[in-house]
């Protein structure tokens, strides 16, 4: 099967597909840009904190900002968000506190305290297992007659897992309002995309579950926004699920525990630098007259301030109480655990 890659904004920052260009105000476009910069600033500092031993293993989103922010901005407040472990850009765009993210990635589980009004699942480290959860969330919404959809994120590697298969299949059979966002960043740690599947694209896998798959330039924030929004509209209209393959690239190491130089060609990384999603949007904004050096400085300064505040807040947090580990295991502490807790104290 030959699939076309959906694109609106090309590498030079030119609109190549005016028909599909979403109607966005300048402020909305600026917001897109600012979230992308903020995510990048957050990411940058996370890597730094990790290097300095102030944070633990961290999975960078560098290069995937368009996939994450573009899709996140297409979500409604009441929609469900089911992340893997690389969606800090989505978390930030949806308003999850950055200091809590740092806290979580520093090994403090209290960081995963999900804000009152946010329908987000916690970070999912086991690859692919969150996919059926998201299908269940969206299914509930359908059964309850609600309009919320579920948006689940995962990587190219996750498409190899049985959980992906079983979740996708349920979504097809029951026409569940779930949007599957696969950030195909070409690598699953050191395993290249071609080793995950012999299929030409990942997007085409959707058809074997009886629903639509879309291949989109994952470094094109307009295209990602557009296909996600369309998918959400479709899901809300009761027309079932959509699978979106965001074709993108992981510019950084898999996590801070990894060294990409062991397994990939620097030329490949260089090649993808030229497709950078932030730079691409910047060029477009410049050509539209809504970007200049001053604005750029302001955006970065604001981002850095926010990030610095988050770091400060996160580092000021009191360490968790050791007995916290007994909390939130059951609604009420069973007698066994009570005894164990007492022993512990």
């Amino acid at each position: 099967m030959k699939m076309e890659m959906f694109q609106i904004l090309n590498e030079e920052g030119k609109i190549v597909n005016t028909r599909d260009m979403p109607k966005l105000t300048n402020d909305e476009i600026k917001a897109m840009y600012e979230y992308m910069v903020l995510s990048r600033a957050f990411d940058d500092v996370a890597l730094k904190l990790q290097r300095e031993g102030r944070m633990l293993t961290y999975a960078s989103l560098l290069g995937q900002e368009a996939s994450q922010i573009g899709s996140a901005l297409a979500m409604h407040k009441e929609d469900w968000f089911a992340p893997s472990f690389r969606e800090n850009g989505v978390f930030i765009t949806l308003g999850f506190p950055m200091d809590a993210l740092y806290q979580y990635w520093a090994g403090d589980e209290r960081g995963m305290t999900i804000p009152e009004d946010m329908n987000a699942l916690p970070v999912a480290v086991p690859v692919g297992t969150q996919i059926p959860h998201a299908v269940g969330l969206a299914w509930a919404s359908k059964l309850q007659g609600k309009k919320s959809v579920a948006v689940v994120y995962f990587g190219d590697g996750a498409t190899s897992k049985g959980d992906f298969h079983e979740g996708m299949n349920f979504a097809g059979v029951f026409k569940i309002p779930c949007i599957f966002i696969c950030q195909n960043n070409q690598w699953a740690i050191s395993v290249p995309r071609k080793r995950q599947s012999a299929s030409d694209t990942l997007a085409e896998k959707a058809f074997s579950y009886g629903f639509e798959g879309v291949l989109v330039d994952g470094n094109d924030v307009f295209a990602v926004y557009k296909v996600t929004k369309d998918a959400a509209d479709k899901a809300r209209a009761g027309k079932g699920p959509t699978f979106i393959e965001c074709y993108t690239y992981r510019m950084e190491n898999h996590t801070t525990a990894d060294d990409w130089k062991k397994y990939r060609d620097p030329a490949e990384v260089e090649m993808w630098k030229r497709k950078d999603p932030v730079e691409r949007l910047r060029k477009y904004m410049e050509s539209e007259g809504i970007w200049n050096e001053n604005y750029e400085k302001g955006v970065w300064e604001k981002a850095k301030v926010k990030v610095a505040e988050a770091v400060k807040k996160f580092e000021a947090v009191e360490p968790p109480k050791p007995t916290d580990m007994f909390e939130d295991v059951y609604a009420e502490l069973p007698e066994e655990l009570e005894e164990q807790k007492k022993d512990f104290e």
Partner: protein
Amino acid sequence: MKMNLVQAINLALKQEMEKYPSVILLGEDIGKDGGVFRVTEGLWQQFGDDRVIDTPLAEVGIIGTSIGLAIAGMKPIAEVQFDGFSMSMLDQLYNHAGRMRKRSQGKWHVPLVFRVPHGGGIRALEHHSESLEAFFTHMPGIKVVTPSGPYNAKGLLISSIRDPDPVVFLEPKRVYRAIKEEVPEEEYTIPLNKAEVVQEGSDITVIAWGAMQKVVREAVAQSKYSVEIVDLLTLYPVDRKTLIDSVKKTGRCVVVQEAPRTCGYGAELVATINEKALLNLEAPVQRVTGYDVPVPLPKLENYYIPDATRINKAIENVMSF
């Protein structure tokens, strides 16, 4: 009304579904067909396709989507057809159902019920006769319940459905139609942390759960000893007070378990007794268990499952120690 275990569970499901619109059933062949053991008979006809859901043949999908459904406010009751097929679900149970409350810092919880026809003794095919309770009881965040008869089945299932935590509900399949009891029409609950002393005695305590209760009761009916029988009902959290009190009283104990011996749930009971009642013991606690082998096919199955002879022999050994 007199009913068997299948009918009691069916009634509990029906009544809870009538009462709570959020209760839905998921599984293979549970709809029009009424389930391979006919436990859900009539429910699809009454509640329709949106509440009694025949799923694709995909156990990970069943439990995985149930987790999402539960988080979003539904009360999914997921069925697996036979014990052996629940192994593929363990990852979702262990890594997610049992941890979602923790992972979300209490924001989400997963009030699903996972119904598993449990154990052997019905001359079934391979992989249809396992007893996997020890896998479930080793999982933080999960409760494990197993009725032994129609009356407690109904009360325990209603409690399980209303419990805010994920509950694995093990149905002793060889007892499905083997016992009839008076089961009240009206609703009642049985707490998920209470064992029952089903027969008082002073010489020795025999602890069993699920299908082994019936075997134990029949085994000791003619015993020359005064046997106290404890039915655990809930395996986690388990009612340690009741069983320890009993062992302290009798000073002797036999634990009966259908699963393979090594690392079975019975080992935990013996360890608990060792910790809490060692000085009261007149003899080592003895375990009567399945063997460390795959459950044999029907021709040999009865040699594998603990029976009256083995139980009485163990009692004799402990008494004459």
